[in-house]
């Protein structure tokens, strides 16, 4: 064989291998890596060529971009989780009747058959110290705790009768974020990343930002990948230290030197590929290139100093601070760059009244003060950039609070506070194909139980997936002998809030 022919031959072999990886990937997409090609049977009885019914990913390129089931209204999600569970009765669910009942003993009839985390015996009713007014054309009630957000009511859909069967923080956060109250299931962002991959491979596909001094009660499991491959877990970006763990080069290694070292590694790996012919080696070469690009693109996007003064004023951000406001601004920057799922957790909303910081008249007001302006700015900023249309913003906690004052261990608490309450609480969604200025769901006169429009965490998850173009019943993964999905065996799309 002439030298030239040999070269052509080698190129052909190389191409074939590359093609093979691709073809193998396609094959596995349909066969399922776990090989169980009976996708969706249990849940849907469907037999369409629905690629997501089976385990759908290529271990060599797990974040390759993919199209969802149908045309999406939202390209990305910013989920603002107020960990600890904010009180709906102090923020959105205006109950003048409860104010009248303040201090009276709670009627036994509404306590029967109920379980509380800390309320024991007969507690007293607790009227809200907040002042409420109607705002905007929609006339939605918002309290004086949220002076900024008042201007945004016509942009959002309120869900006033969200209901969960979990009334402890960790299980309720898990239910809200993973669809199950037990540890071990993939989080919403992981499911979305598994389904969509990423279009910007220079940034993580699923970013998590935390504030408030603690991780959420359920720990990193609320952005974990559960039984999905760990590549789909949320990547925590931090405002102090490395923005992403292990992103920064060690001391003395400049970017040029890093480039030189990755070039050297890849050259040797290419030689290894020539010898062993394993397509995984080619994949490793491209992962190292991607890592190098991330080293530039992540710090760039995480740096807010370049933002103009008016933006800082709008959000109330101070560069270098570890605060919710900074995270809100980062969320906007990240979705702007094509990140699909940005999850913010802000800790400190658990207002039992056992201390001043956890009271509904002082502590809660303070938490509102730390977030109100930034949440409002985020909506406005997304809107002015034309991004709100394609970005779904979700705000909420893991459950609500009781209309009764907490009496921990049967004793009145030292400050005004409310116990955990799963039956009825408020969340809101905006942008990404959600109706504007709508209120869906209603609670009774004291905000204790839903009267109409009751939705649960699985409904919220189904709706979020729907806005991203997924049939929530068909985004499946085979594990432990059955098809799992985010919404377990439940979930109804909340149609009345979809535009």
């Amino acid at each position, binding site marked *: 064989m002439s030298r030239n022919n040999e070269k052509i031959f080698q190129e052909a*072999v190389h191409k074939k291998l590359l093609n093979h990886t691709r073809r193998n990937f396609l094959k596995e997409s349909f066969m399922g890596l*776990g090989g169980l090609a009976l996708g969706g049977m249990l849940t849907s009885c469907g037999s369409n060529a629905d690629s997501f019914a089976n385990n759908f990913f290529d271990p060599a390129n797990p974040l390759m971009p993919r199209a969802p089931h149908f045309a999406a209204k939202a390209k990305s999600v910013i989920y603002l989780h107020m960990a600890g569970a904010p009180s709906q009765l102090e923020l959105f669910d205006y109950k003048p009747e409860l104010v009248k009942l303040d201090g009276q003993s709670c009627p036994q009839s509404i306590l029967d058959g109920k379980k509380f985390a800390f309320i024991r015996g007969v507690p007293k009713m607790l009227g809200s110290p907040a002042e409420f007014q109607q705002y905007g054309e929609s006339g939605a009630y918002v309290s004086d705790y949220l002076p900024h957000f008042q201007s945004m009511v016509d942009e959002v859909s309120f869900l006033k009768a969200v209901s969960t069967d979990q009334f402890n923080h960790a299980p309720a956060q898990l239910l809200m974020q993973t669809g199950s109250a037990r540890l071990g299931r993939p989080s919403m962002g992981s499911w979305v990343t598994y389904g969509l991959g990423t279009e910007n491979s220079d940034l993580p596909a699923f970013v998590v930002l935390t504030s408030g001094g603690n991780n959420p009660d359920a*720990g990193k499991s609320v952005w974990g990948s559960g039984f999905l491959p760990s590549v789909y877990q949320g990547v925590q970006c931090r405002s102090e230290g490395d923005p992403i763990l292990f992103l920064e080069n060690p001391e003395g290694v400049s970017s040029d030197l890093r480039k030189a070292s990755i070039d*050297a590694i890849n050259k040797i790996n290419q030689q290894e590929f020539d010898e062993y012919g*394993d397509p995984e080696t080619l994949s490793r070469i491209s992962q190292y290139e991607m890592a190098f690009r991330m080293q530039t693109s992540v710090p760039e996007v995480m740096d807010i100093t370049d933002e103009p003064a008016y933006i800082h004023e709008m959000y109330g951000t101070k560069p270098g601070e570890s605060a919710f406001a900074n995270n809100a601004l980062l969320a906007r920057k990240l979705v702007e760059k094509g990140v699909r799922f940005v999850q913010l957790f802000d*800790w400190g909303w658990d207002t039992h009244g056992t201390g001043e910081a956890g009271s509904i008249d002082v502590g809660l007001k303070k938490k509102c003060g730390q977030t109100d302006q930034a949440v409002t700015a985020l909506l406005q900023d997304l809107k002015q950039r034309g991004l709100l249309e394609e970005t779904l913003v979700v705000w909420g906690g893991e459950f609500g609070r009781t209309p009764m004052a907490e009496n921990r261990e049967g004793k009145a608490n030292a400050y005004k506070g409310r116990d955990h309450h799963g039956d009825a609480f408020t969340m809101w969604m905006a942008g990404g194909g959600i109706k504007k200025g709508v209120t869906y769901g209603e609670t009774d006169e004291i905000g204790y139980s839903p009267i109409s429009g009751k939705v649960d965490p699985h409904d919220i998850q189904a709706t979020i997936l729907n806005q991203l173009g997924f049939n929530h019943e068909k985004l499946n993964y085979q594990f*432990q002998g*059955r098809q799992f999905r985010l919404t377990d065996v439940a979930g109804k799309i909340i149609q009345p809030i979809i535009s």
Partner: protein
Amino acid sequence: MLKKPLFLISGGILPFLMYWVVACRSQQPVDYSSQIKPILNKNCIACHGGVKKQGGWSLLFEDEAKSKAKSGKYAIVPGDARASEMIRRLSLDDPEERMPFEHEALPDEEIELLTRWINEGANWGVHWAYKTIDKVAIPKINSDWTKNGIDNFVLSKAEENNLTVSEKADPNVLVRRLQLDIIGFPQNSEAKTNYSKKPTDENYELLVDELLDSPHYGEKWTSMWLDLARYADTKGYERDGNREIWRYRDWLIKAFNEDMPYDQFLTEQLAGDLLAKPTEDQLIATAFHRNTMTNDEGGTNNEEFRVAAVLDRVNTTWEATMGTTFACVQCHSHPYDPFTHEEYYKFMAFFNNTRDVDSYEDSPLLRHFDPGQEAKLNKLANHLNKRAGETETAKIINFIKTLQPSIASLESDEFVNSELSDTKWLAMRNNSSARVPGVPLKEKSTLVFSYLSNKPGGTVKILRESLNGEEIGRFKIDRSTKGWEYREINIEPSDSTSDIYLTYQNPNIKDDRTDGVKFNWFHFDTPYPDSDSKADYWNLLNAKTSTTPIMAENSAEMSRTTNVFERGSWLNKGKKVGTAVPASLNKFPENYPKNRLGLAKWMTSKENPLTARAIVNRLWEQIWGIGIVETLEDLGSQGEKPSNQALLDHLSWKLMNEYNWQLKPLLKDMFLSSTYRQSSKLDPEKIEKDPNNRFMARGPRIRLSAEQIRDQALSASGKFNPEMFGKPVMPFQPEGIWNSPYSGDKWIKSEDGQQYRRAIYTFWKRTSAYPSMMNFDATGREVCSSRRIRTNTPLQALTTLNDVVYIDLSNQMAERFAEHSPAEGISEAYLSLTGNTIDKKKQAILLELYDEALKDNQDRKAALALVMNSLLNLDEVLMKS
């Protein structure tokens, strides 16, 4: 009307050929498991299975399938397809009536197959994995390639698939492969040097033996088991507090190293506490099922999380030991496999009778005495044996060692002005009462309890049956306790089990808010039999010790009943059930005890079709990266088909019958086979024919595990600390990773060489697992996990490039090879990582990098460290070839 047979509707030669194929096959009877069950699973069972039974008819069990449907018709009439409603409905043209409902009609060939199957008698078959493991004849093969039975099975399968086996791998590649597989990292040794110098079969076997005898063998194989046992050093959930359970990890390492027979290995973990006179080690083994999570969040229902732990034990037992996914049977009968909803709860009854109750302390705990204390304990035991007899002594020693049997105060209820403090401990205020239900009081005239009080002046009364009942004891609290203290009082014995009521009065407490006393647990007992040694007894009870959570069975009088949970919810209790195993598997012998010990015996009997197959499949997967059955967690009919069932059965049979369940000889067979020694080089044809290496016509080539990547780098750095066992260590971890609410736990970096311990000793926090290992696909250890899926991501690249652990080790490597010239240093380091001499081209690339780094920062060591770090990032270093 039946659809026309295939050969009538089309003309031409092709249909004829197809008919010929069908006709030829028809000389063999249709096989249910391989030909019929897949069709039913795919098309029918979603609506006629364990979950839904449309038309009152299900295909899951033979008796149901052959019974009358709601319509009054028989879907299957054995021997008569024409009379079988199922065939009629499958063959209709009207889509309203045709089955599968609202789906495409089945292909003619499948209907034809079902028809033949019914005409042949509709013989039900058993899925291969539920059949007893028989001895398999080794395929006769005339080839000098084969070294042991494994090769005969592999070669005949490869030939069946038109694959040719690969040439033998380079000896240096083989050495590294063996080291990674057997001990988890490359290391220099005499046998290695001998084999490298003279790569004979004899030297190869000597190397295998040396590695199997290495104490590091146990560490390597324990990694596999820790994922199955969901081992972690914390309790999970919100507070995720620390849990001292590392002695269980050490037990595993020792068990693997001693090559404890696998049946014993399982028995001790599942039921060590139920063995006659269990040793301390056998009790530690039961911590296997104490790796379940405990929820310490205030306001949680302890029974809910106790039940969650029990369910987890059921699911883990099935998945880890029998490769079967049982979790779906929690809510309904298994949709595909022959396990009913009720059978789940009968199986759960084996596990529903232990003392643990989701308590903060994680009790029952085994207390570990230091040698001095141990000597005192033995002295006491000897003394008591003479005075009180063996039975009484054993009971007392057990109480000293475990503080069991005792009733946790969180089991109390009927609170009046009392409560569970933080839902953990009974707290009583002035003029309060509470009930402790179901206390075995027969012959009990002593109460030992754990309590805490800061309010002297209180009186506690103990009443039987009701608040107005007989007072059986009382005590005054006249001083503040120093934290939790134990105390003993006399009580009036009675003749039965009854509820007791506690009341508390304290005139010094003027309000109704202040807690006067808290209780942790109560132990009702006969009086201590010997006044001479009583002080020693109390000293030992009060001794500070470290502990391990263990399993402890309820006594007969305290046993729990088990109910079916309707739709899987613990709040919806259905019918009461006793212990039993699924009817579709081997029988549970009458003479076995109906407890966890009997269960372990049943699982490890040679009749059990799953246990041996499951472990053999796991061992195979550890080496090959893919099991003979790919779905390690599911050998059932929904799992993947085995790529070589005869091989799996051959090895499983051998494990039980020839090797007495010992894993080392079985592994040795695997390592000595020619199959294992093949080169792992790929070519387009091999990739095309067998992309995932299911047929083993080439050696394994897989990325190293998170643990192997760390251990290999440690070994190459020269800093490797070979110390074994003990408390978990904390190697470098970036700041701010742990931020659990309500928890003061901190990551404190280990020093003095402890930071260079093997990966397996790294502290594992469930809600915040060690990040660099998580990046390499380690599991969170929340639930049992059979397989790690190996991904390839940029975050992995960043980890080995920038994590301080790898930077430090790169610097250590630079230090280690600093005396050499850069070129020599590079080749030495390359040799220690890959076992091979570096080729000139690769060396040149790295030297060029060295020069560039030197130009950049003028620091020879820093430049060499960058090169060393690049070596750690090479594909050939991250992969096992």
